[in-house]
């Protein structure tokens, strides 16, 4: 049963990635937007290196989250615009596989964007992050999983609403406060030179959040997709 779920999930992810590789409408927009955000921060904050250093973790995560949001918004709208929702529902097997497939795609796109943002951030703002990359990557991954789990569910939901572009961030940000808080604090401690052990309780919070919503969201997804 688990093997079956994995196979279906993989098929779903593969479909999304192939579509993306052909059209590149999502990932290009995300990468360019990410670069722009980093660019704009500079004008918003001025040249003061000290201020920048202090707010760096928050900025980094704002860039991650806004870019991720851009990708999440597209994940079901493309299906809706091309009227593929009905076909999606006809996929055999449990609906969970659709959720996990979409989620894996969303995480993949967001991680790709983060892989660009992180080094670019280090270069543009002259931060010495190179030795810290593994621990930063772990925090980024844990945060991304939690954010995307709720994000994928809400994206499926808001795709059927009026004013869907505004509703996704309005619902997503309040719900993901624990993830945002945990990720930013953990990143802050790591950038300040603390090891992973110093942020263990934030990692626990992120991990716990991920577990809870990876269990709840796919079950809730069934009720969202119902026609």
């Amino acid at each position, binding site marked *: 049963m688990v093997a079956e779920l994995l196979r279906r999930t993989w098929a779903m992810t593969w479909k999304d990635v192939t579509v993306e590789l052909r059209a590149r409408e999502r990932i290009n927009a995300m990468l360019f937007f990410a670069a722009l955000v980093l660019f704009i921060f500079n004008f918003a904050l001025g040249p003061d290196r000290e201020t920048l250093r202090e707010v760096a973790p928050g900025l980094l995560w704002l860039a991650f989250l806004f870019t991720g949001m851009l990708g999440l918004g597209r994940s079901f709208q493309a299906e809706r615009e091309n009227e593929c929702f009905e076909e999606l529902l006809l996929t055999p097997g449990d609906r969970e596989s659709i959720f996990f497939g979409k989620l894996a795609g969303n995480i993949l796109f967001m991680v790709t964007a983060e892989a660009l943002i992180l080094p670019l951030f280090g270069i543009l703002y002259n931060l010495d992050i190179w030795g810290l990359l593994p621990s930063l990557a772990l925090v980024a991954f844990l945060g991304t999983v939690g954010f995307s789990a*709720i994000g994928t*569910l*809400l994206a499926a*939901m808001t795709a*059927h*609403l*009026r*004013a869907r572009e505004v*509703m996704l961030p*309005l*619902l997503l*940000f*309040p*719900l993901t*406060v*624990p993830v945002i*808080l*945990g990720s930013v*604090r953990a990143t802050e401690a790591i950038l300040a030179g603390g090891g992973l052990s110093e942020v263990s*309780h*934030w990692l626990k*919070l992120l991990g*716990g*959040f991920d577990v*809870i*919503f990876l269990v*709840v*969201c796919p079950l*809730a997804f069934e*009720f*969202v997709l*119902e026609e």
Partner: protein
Amino acid sequence: MGRGSLATRVLGGTAGLLLAAGLYLGLVVVPPDAVQGDVQRIMYVHVPSIVTAYIAFFVVFCTSILYLWKRDLRFDAVAVSSAEIGVVFTGITLATGMIWGKPTWGVWWTWDARLTLTAILFTIYVGYLMLRAFAEEPLAGARYGAVLAILGFLDIPLNHLAVYWWRTLHQPSSILRPGGPSVASDMLLPLAMNFAGLVLLSTYFLVERVRLERLRHRTAEVRLTRGRRG
């Protein structure tokens, strides 16, 4: 049609009387607090409102689960009505808390744990109400709302952990704590009175708001049958 049944009116009247008594007790009879002075009297609205709001959100959570399970629109009507009332009372809590904070802490707002949590709660349920307003199809809106309410409720303990690790300035809970309440007994009376009054008042609001939801359902039904016929 405009007025509720006799029982509802009695409910509303009792709530009003209790609140008036609580107001009189809290503003006139009970002495001011030793440290804070008269400002502490704000507590008699602030604390009962947040408890009422929490009860309302708990009702939203339960009825949302029941709706997804039984698919009876009456549960959904209670859920959406209760969410609206919860938002009203959370709003009152935030506003009175800010007014109390200015003379006591010296700031209108600070990003302390309890304040932050209440603000997050407020935004989650305002989002819920917007979702309900923006749903194109009522049945889908009911399902989405139920899912969001369950997610939001599960989020509360996580928010609690995150925000408490982040910062704490608000004094610990005065009433619900081991060793009994730390509020002098004659101050508990107006608190209890207002609490009972606000719970009754919110029940009254709930009954009326659910009636509104039923009216809307009936209107939609009539429209549907007429559309089919015509």
